[in-house]
């Protein structure tokens, strides 16, 4: 069953929703960094595909692979009171993950110093039980063979493995960057287990034009996220379910904070 494991280092994110413009750069940065295949309708290598319906293109949002996904929030009011907000949603790297204990083959684990929930693609059997378990929809399945249109394969990152059809994948806080940051620290004669703020950051945090995403070690007082996560306007998604996400959100707007959890049975609120 679920088990809590405490880590000395706890990588986490603080996302300032008030700064997010919903531009989607984080989603693009994530796709490029992590070799996520674009959705292509036809597969020139598969003749059997012609017998049946074509593959999905990117317009089918229930089939796309978006480790980082931006949700649009609305306060539900009519103009001129109407307000929107954007909520980027990576994997929450939960402290008490719903997905880890359910995997029948230990293809996902929370076992490494840093508290990142891993996904072991060569071991995943593709049963999708973890997807059924995750209330954040952070997990994605490879419905089709990954395919890069001609020339696009030249842009693949050599440090991130591509995934075959039939396995589940998700955000891993750009884990290859973590490995690189630790390697660099070792080469520089520094302690890889005590990286300075900014030495390891994710692609989405890097690319965000408004700096809405801050990344760092939640346990390290020298990292900005340590304080930001404790701010008066910080909240996490679905805290009542007890999954203890390592991703925090910040908003000064109360209606936005209220959409982080369900309050209908006790205090009323949005749904």
């Amino acid at each position, binding site marked *: 069953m679920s088990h809590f494991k405490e880590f000395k280092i706890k990588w986490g994110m603080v996302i300032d929703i008030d700064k997010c413009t919903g531009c989607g750069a984080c989603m693009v940065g994530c796709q490029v960094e992590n070799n996520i295949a674009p959705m292509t309708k036809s597969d020139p290598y598969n003749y059997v595909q012609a017998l049946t319906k074509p593959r999905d293109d990117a317009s089918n949002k229930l089939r796309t692979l978006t480790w980082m996904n931006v949700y649009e929030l609305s306060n539900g009011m009519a103009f001129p009171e109407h307000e929107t907000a954007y909520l980027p949603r990576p994997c929450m790297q939960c402290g008490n993950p719903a997905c880890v204990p359910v995997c029948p083959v230990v293809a996902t684990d929370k076992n490494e110093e840093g508290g990142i929930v891993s996904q072991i693609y060569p071991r995943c059997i593709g049963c999708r*039980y973890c997807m*059924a378990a995750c209330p954040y929809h952070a997990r994605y399945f490879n419905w089709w063979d990954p395919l890069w249109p001609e020339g696009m394969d030249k842009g693949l990152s050599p440090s991130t493995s591509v995934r075959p059809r039939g396995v589940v994948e998700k955000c891993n806080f750009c884990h290859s960057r973590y490995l690189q940051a630790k390697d660099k620290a070792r080469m520089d004669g520094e302690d890889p287990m005590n990286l300075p703020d900014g030495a390891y950051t994710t692609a989405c945090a890097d690319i965000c034009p408004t700096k809405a995403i801050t990344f760092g070690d939640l346990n390290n007082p020298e990292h900005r996220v340590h304080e930001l996560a404790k701010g008066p306007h910080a909240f996490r998604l679905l805290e009542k379910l007890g999954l203890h996400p390592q991703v925090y959100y910040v908003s000064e707007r109360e209606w936005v904070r209220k959409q982080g959890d369900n309050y209908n049975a006790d205090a009323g609120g*949005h749904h």
Partner: protein
Amino acid sequence: MDSKLFPEGAQRCSFGKFLIWTAVILAFFLWGLYAAVLVLYNGIGTTGLDNYFGFGAWITFDLAVIALGAGAFFTGLLKYILKIKQLEKIINLTVVVGFICYSGAMLVLTLDIGQPGRAWFGYWHPNVHSMLTEVIFCITCYCTVLIIEFVPLVLEQKQLNKIPFIHALAHNMHVNMALFAGLGAFLSTFHQGSLGGMYGVLIGRPFAFREGFFIWPWTFFLFVLSAVGSGPVFTVLVATFMEKLTGKKLVDFKTKALMGKIAGTMLTVYMFFKILDTWAWATGYLPSVGLTFDEMFYGMVYGKWLLYTEIVLCGVVPAIMLITPSIRNRPALLYTAAILDCIGVSLNRYIFTVQTIAFPAMPFDQWQVYNPNWVEYASSIMIVAYGFLVLSLVYRYLPLFPQERELN
């Protein structure tokens, strides 16, 4: 033409008629096989599943047939361990139906997992905390037990049984069958439970999450009870359907009514706890996570009518019908109750599989609706056709019904 192979003293239709019947079944089977090939070759993208509905028609089908196949282990338990002699008249059929259900479910699972070649990882890299690991263990082991239980029936085939060694082997397997019945009951109870546990442990899914006893959520026990509350009458329905098709009496009504009584008793116990569980979930757990009972339902497609149909029309009603002797002992009413009961348990599996993941836990998320496509239907129908085929062959050539001679 093949009359020498028929069971002792049994009449069967002509070989030509049998071939036509088989051809019709094979047509359905081939249609499903085509869908299965598409799935294996092109990927699960060919189905109606998506990132919101990782589980769908296939998992519902699996869970439903496994529950309905529970007649095998429970009847075996009652006959071999508790020595209810009357049940020997239907025990062969329960074994064959159980075998079809379990092997069929395993075939569907090989389509359903994205990497069928890695199916054995459940044994190689088992996560002992996962309910699904337990399901993989028990289903594969229990399917083996069912094969062991099925083999003596094959060995009793009239011509095969003339060979002294085979005759002795079949006899000895029968003598030791209590051991396998016991083993089967143990394995089956656990995986029926673990299938329920699979949903009950989902801490991130308020629709399914349940507290429980030790490591087992309440759904663990509810799934065991609902399976034994419906499996026996499913076997009765199969027997009755075969009687209608063949125009013969195959099992006496007394045995059927006894099966109805057994299932009815278990169903009544189940309904008591199911209603209690639903009430505790709606008034205790849901408010604790900021949700209400009403929020668990959406429009017509995931409306409350589903839950009420499951609990009242296909739960309480058949339970009352089956435990009341005057109703149970009237064939038409027994079969009606049995049908309602089987629909109820299938509906329960559907609701736990699909509605659990349809409910958007994040307040800013939307309900999504899942529609299976023809690929999922066709591959499921392939399994049904496979079941028809196995049962047709077994009925034609093996001594499935010990009472057939005296009843006709």
